């Protein structure tokens, strides 16, 4: 039995903002199925009562003085923008209606 269907792969692609060509979606469905089949081995491990590890080290939250420090200047931050206007990143219109 396959563990992931083409429909599910395409739904994941939608969530991840990827478009897949027909052949690509077909190939990925097979590959992901093989990988999921392999990782399903974890189901055999008894993990009742085991705390999940999100991070390998105990995390502290270090604090610093609440003092302004230099950050990335707006012109430096915008230098890599594919499209910028003034001090902003420009994208296609998101909200329907009204003036562009």
């Amino acid at each position, binding site marked *: 039995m396959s563990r992931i269907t083409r429909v599910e792969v395409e739904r994941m692609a939608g969530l991840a903002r*990827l*478009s897949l060509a027909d052949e690509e979606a077909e190939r990925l469905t097979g590959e992901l199925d093989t990988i999921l089949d392999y990782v399903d081995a*974890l189901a055999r491990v008894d993990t009742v009562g085991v705390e999940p590890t*999100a991070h390998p080290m105990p995390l*502290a939250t270090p604090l610093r003085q609440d003092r302004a420090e230099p950050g990335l200047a707006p012109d430096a931050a915008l230098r890599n*923008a594919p499209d910028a206007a003034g001090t902003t990143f420009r994208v296609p219109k998101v909200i329907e209606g009204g003036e562009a």
Partner: protein
Amino acid sequence: MATTPLGTVSELRSALDAGETTSVALLEQSLARAVELDLHAMLQLRADAARAEARAADERRAAGDVRSPLDGIPIALKDNISQDGEPCGCASRILEGYVSPYDATASARLREAGAVVIGRTNMDEFAMGSSTEHSAYGPTRNPWDRERAPGGSSGGSAAAVAAGIVPLAFGSDTGGSIRQPAALCGVVGVKPSYGRVSRYGLVAFASSLDQIGPLARTSADAALGLEVVAGPDPRDSTALPDPVPRYRDGLDGDVSGLVIGLPREYFVEEGVDPGALACVRAAVAELEAAGAKTREVSLPHTQFAIATYYLVANAEASSNLSRFDGVRYGRRAPEFADLSELYRRTRSEGFGAEVKRRILLGTYVLSAGYYDAYYRKAQQVRTLIRRDLESAFSGCDLLATPTAPDPAFRIGERSGDPLRMYLSDVYTVSASLAGAAGVSTPCGFAGGLPVGLQLLAPPLGEAVMLRAADAYERRTEWHARRPPEVS
């Protein structure tokens, strides 16, 4: 060959101190060698900027103002470590044209130390791979056999050191990406404990696993490189606050009384090249002859490590890579009708096949209905793997294992089989999941190709780990071998 390989950092420093060479001369040798060998280890050479830096290093030396043991030494950085004013592309089309507006903390510390960065090394796209074949700009060649892969993802850094283009390079290791290419190229590679080196300016793949570390010809040089980049950083809250020891001072060649554990699950014949395993067994015998004690230990969840790693790492990757959307930096698809299509086209055109595969897997295991079965389950098994290592380290100073199941494989041999490629990391991922430290050092040859010995230490155990690796190198010549084709 018109050019000759560069020596170790220690050798180059002695020659500089004795006035036998200059930083400018070393840099020219390094640049000429990169071009002549044409291994595609380097994605880009920053020749002019590096020349200015080498001249400045020579002037400092003439004025008696040497900044550090790395002052004026040519080095190379993986293409995912940001350098102010230089491209940082992660070997991906999606970062085409991107120029970093800041230094990674590691880059800044190397710059302060006076090291001269010759350029950026090739890698698997976004560090996702074990062969450097997933670079959008084509594979790097293994200096020992051009038809073979150098390992990965830090394959460019490993090949550049093995070929004598630079004596020291830096890579990143998420599940084995420094140690495995070091083994396949016959050099030393160190994956520091999680948090030992700041990740600020390292493009994130899996944030709970990623670490920057050095690749060099000797553990002594790697120790020096690590000292320079390691330590607390106000820009990375996961960087450990503990002071950094002078690792070099502890390299006294003495391993007497050290207890080295041999995980029985790592010494089974199945799935490992017999020649490689024989080299590792001989290396363990050499450490015993030097006075180390060995004992068998067990890491019972070893068989689940790869599955756990790929679920955890790719879940984190799918989240980290959502930032590449064609809005703030990098490549934007030229044609789109609306914002949603801008995202989809940019990402579909910009990411390669392996990256898409991992983003989809990561998205799947984080999605509603699968989160508990896959992601949470993997995090729980991660706890068990971490406990396995803690338990082993309670009775041992170090663990010794093979670094990789096979010597270098042919380019193209595994690229059609993602799962087979993932198994290249079978010996390295457990330490990554546990935040432990690891080093791979050359321990022999199988079929004419280098084999690596991996030594693992508990978190912050770098000093004893490097002492043992250095002690092994003092007793053997494997690390001093050069690839015949390029010497």
